[in-house]
Every structure is written in structure tokens, then in C-alpha cells.
């Protein structure tokens, strides 16, 4: 696990606004992905980060079903059933794209060659444990795909999620109650209410949106630290 060092000196609280919208959240994640990085964007909301990467950023997108240099979603005549992303959605290939088989695809992940991955989550613990593959719901068919490989493989693991679930429960927790995807693997959470580093030093708030750190802490079951 690589710990991201903070470039800012103090926690920033944006209290004259509400929480980030999904689009603003995607934009916020995109801003922290350096030009030239190799990145895997998980299925669902993380996929939208690609829409906000600068055109000249030269970020290379990896899709674990076997391609580097993935382009935007394919439409119309560009749809090829043999060219899909990890969500089985038809995509395009950018100039310079490369195809490879499954063992190579996961070797480049497990081998620490991917700079970043951005994943969704059901829960993240302050220590960086991730739960994002199984809700433990009775009768649910378990399906893991590449989630566990991504969680431990990329050099830096970002989680992008709403801070509260639909019932209002915090998804940032002391210990995950859902089945784990990986232990101590998440570096940072980007959420609508806050950007928070997690790991051995606890939950360190970098930014808040719509409330102060103290106001947010009142709504969460975990201790929040300032930079």
C-alpha cells in the first residue's frame, strides 16, 4: 500500500455550499489523477471519472478484461461485441491501445504496475479495509469478479462513494460488517461530504463539503482527525 502524502498543510472546509454532486465528485477525483498515470476505474460511478480527465492528460485506462488504452463508450457503428469493458459495456480503443490475456491483465495489477484504481464501496473502515463485493443479503448470488485483485493490486487505491447509504448509515466505519474485499488496502475516500485519508493513522480529513469537520464527526461513528 502506498500512502499518498498531502500537498496541503491544513484541512479545508467548504461550508458555504452543499455536498458534492455526483458530477462534482467525479471531477474532484479526476483532479487528483496525475498526467500519464495508468488507472483502472471500477464499474459504476468510478467509470464517470474518465469524463473529467483532461484531454491532454495522457492517462491510460486499464480494463481488467484485457486492454490498456480504453476509450469512451462505443455507440452506433462503433459497437463491437468483442470490444467491451469490465462491465461488459461496448467501448472504443484509443490509438496506442494494447490487448492482453487475463493472466497478464491481473499480473500487471498484482505486480504493482497500475498507479491508481478507483473503486466503489459498501463500507470502508478507518484502517482502510474495503467491503464492496457482497451485501450478505439472504439469497444473493455471490459474485466477486476482479474486485479483490484490484483492491490489493493497484499502488494507490481510491474509493469513490456516497458517505451515507440510502438508510442514512455511515459507510465510513470502525470495522466493516459486510464481507471484506481486502484488508488495509484503501488509501483515500472521495465522498460527497468529505475527502478522507484512511490507514494506520486513522481517518484524516483533507476536505469537507457543506459542513465543518466537527459537524460531520457528529454524524459518523468514527473519529475524524484534521491534517
Amino acid at each position: 500500500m502506498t500512502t499518498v502524502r498531502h500537498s496541503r498543510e491544513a484541512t479545508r472546509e467548504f461550508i458555504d455550499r452543499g455536498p458534492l454532486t455526483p458530477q462534482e465528485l467525479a471531477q474532484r477525483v479526476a483532479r487528483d489523477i496525475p498526467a500519464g498515470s495508468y488507472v483502472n476505474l471500477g464499474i459504476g460511478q468510478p467509470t464517470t471519472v474518465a469524463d473529467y480527465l483532461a484531454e491532454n492528460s495522457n492517462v491510460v485506462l486499464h480494463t481488467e478484461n484485457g486492454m490498456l488504452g480504453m476509450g469512451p463508450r462505443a455507440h452506433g457503428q462503433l459497437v463491437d461485441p468483442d470490444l467491451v469493458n469490465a462491465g461488459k459495456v461496448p467501448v472504443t480503443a484509443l490509438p496506442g491501445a494494447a490487448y492482453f490475456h487475463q493472466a497478464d491483465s491481473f499480473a500487471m495489477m498484482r505486480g504493482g504496475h497500475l498507479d491508481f484504481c478507483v473503486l466503489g464501496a459498501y463500507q470502508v473502515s478507518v484502517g482502510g479495509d474495503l467491503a464492496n463485493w457482497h451485501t450478505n443479503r439472504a439469497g444473493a448470488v455471490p459474485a466477486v469478479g476482479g474486485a479483490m485483485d484490484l483492491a490489493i493490486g493497484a499502488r494507490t487505491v481510491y474509493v469513490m462513494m456516497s458517505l451515507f447509504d440510502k438508510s442514512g448509515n455511515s459507510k465510513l466505519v470502525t470495522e466493516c460488517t459486510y464481507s471484506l474485499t481486502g484488508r488495509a488496502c484503501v488509501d483515500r475516500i472521495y465522498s460527497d461530504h468529505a475527502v478522507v485519508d484512511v490507514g494506520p493513522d486513522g481517518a484524516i480529513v483533507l476536505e469537507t463539503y457543506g459542513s465543518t469537520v466537527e459537524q460531520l464527526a457528529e454524524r459518523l461513528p468514527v473519529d475524524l482527525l484534521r491534517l
Partner: protein
Amino acid sequence: MMTPISAAEAMSGITDGSTVLISGFGTAGLPANLIDALLNCGARDLTIVSNNAGNGESGIAALLAAGRVRKVVCSFPRQSDSYVFDSLYRSGEVELELVPQGNLAERIRAAGAGIPAFYTPTGYGTTLGEGKESRVFGGRGCLLEYALGGDVALIAAKSADRLGNLVYNKTARNFGPIMAAAAALTIVEVGTIVEPGALDPEIIVTPGIYVDRLVVAQPRCSLVGEGSEV
């Protein structure tokens, strides 16, 4: 030199109880014609190793619906239209071994490479790692995972030459190259067969040493929808 045979002929020798590796990610790279032939040949009590557990009512879903499958080894059985598997799984009529996708790929690769087992960090500390041998390397917990080979591999490729050298199409490559090497009998459906020398040796992905039987068939692909909840 290989002479292409029919999909039905290609199934000869596949017995009840076989472990069958089937390439494909969703429908990309899925050997639909060979799966139909496997269904028609009547073999039962099969263990199917594939990334997904079928969609709709064709392909692997048809094998499942016909009661030919005892066990599925896969990473992502749940898809938007995987109702055949879902129903059999819930009623306990099919066994599931769920394997993280990278571990599935590496276990298949290991089988083809003659490596009986290996340690990997993926899955350590999770419910999928429970009961597995583990060891710590450089402070990182790892699980012992075993090679996963097959009696038969059914794969799809774009083109072959008559020595069995293969090239693939885009992300349809997925499990093809590693499954071709990991089975005692590898059967490939290809769009076209060319004479030796027609494929540039520099671009051959699967060398013909891994390929036993060739079937010429038009790919039958349709897209499946997104299957993840996250």
C-alpha cells in the same frame, strides 16, 4: 497439419464428469458453437470453469438448464440475465466455487505452465480465503492457490493456421490463451483458417502446440448488460 472438423466431431472423447474450461468474458470470446455441440453430445456431470455462469438461455445457461453441470468455477456468476444459474444455485442443484478473477486466471495459467500451486495476496483476510493455507511474505499475507487445469478447453479465436497457431480479436482474447495451455484436449472455434505462413509469427498469440482440434464457425455474439451492483 490440422484439418478442420465439425463442432459435433470435435466433441468426440468428452466423457461424463469432465472438467471443461470455457473462454469468454460475458459473450466476448465465448465459443457459442462449441458449447452448443457440448450440449448436443450429451456429456453430463460436468465441472465448468469460466469467468461467468451464462446469460439468457443459450451457451453455458443452456448446459445448466439441461442439468449437465455439477459444478461451476467462476468469478462472476451474477449477470443481469443469469437467471438460469441463479435459480439452480439457490435450489442447491449446482455447486459454485467462487474465485477472484485474477486468481482464476493465474490458477489456469499455472496449470498450463506446470506449476502446481502458488502464493497470492488476493483474497487474504476475506471469506474467500477461509480454510486456505496462508503465509506471510515481506509483511504481506498470502494464500496458497492451486493450479486449475481441465480435461477439455473450448475456446474462440479470430483466425488459425493449419498448425493451430491462433490470433484473437480485441478483448475477446481474455481467457483463450491460458485455457488453451491448461487442458488435455483443446478445441478452438475460429472464424477463418489459413495456410501456415499466412500469419506473421510475430503476432501469433497462442502457438499451435497448445491446440488439438479446429472448428470453423461464425461467431455468434450478443452483448450482455452490466452485472455489478457496485
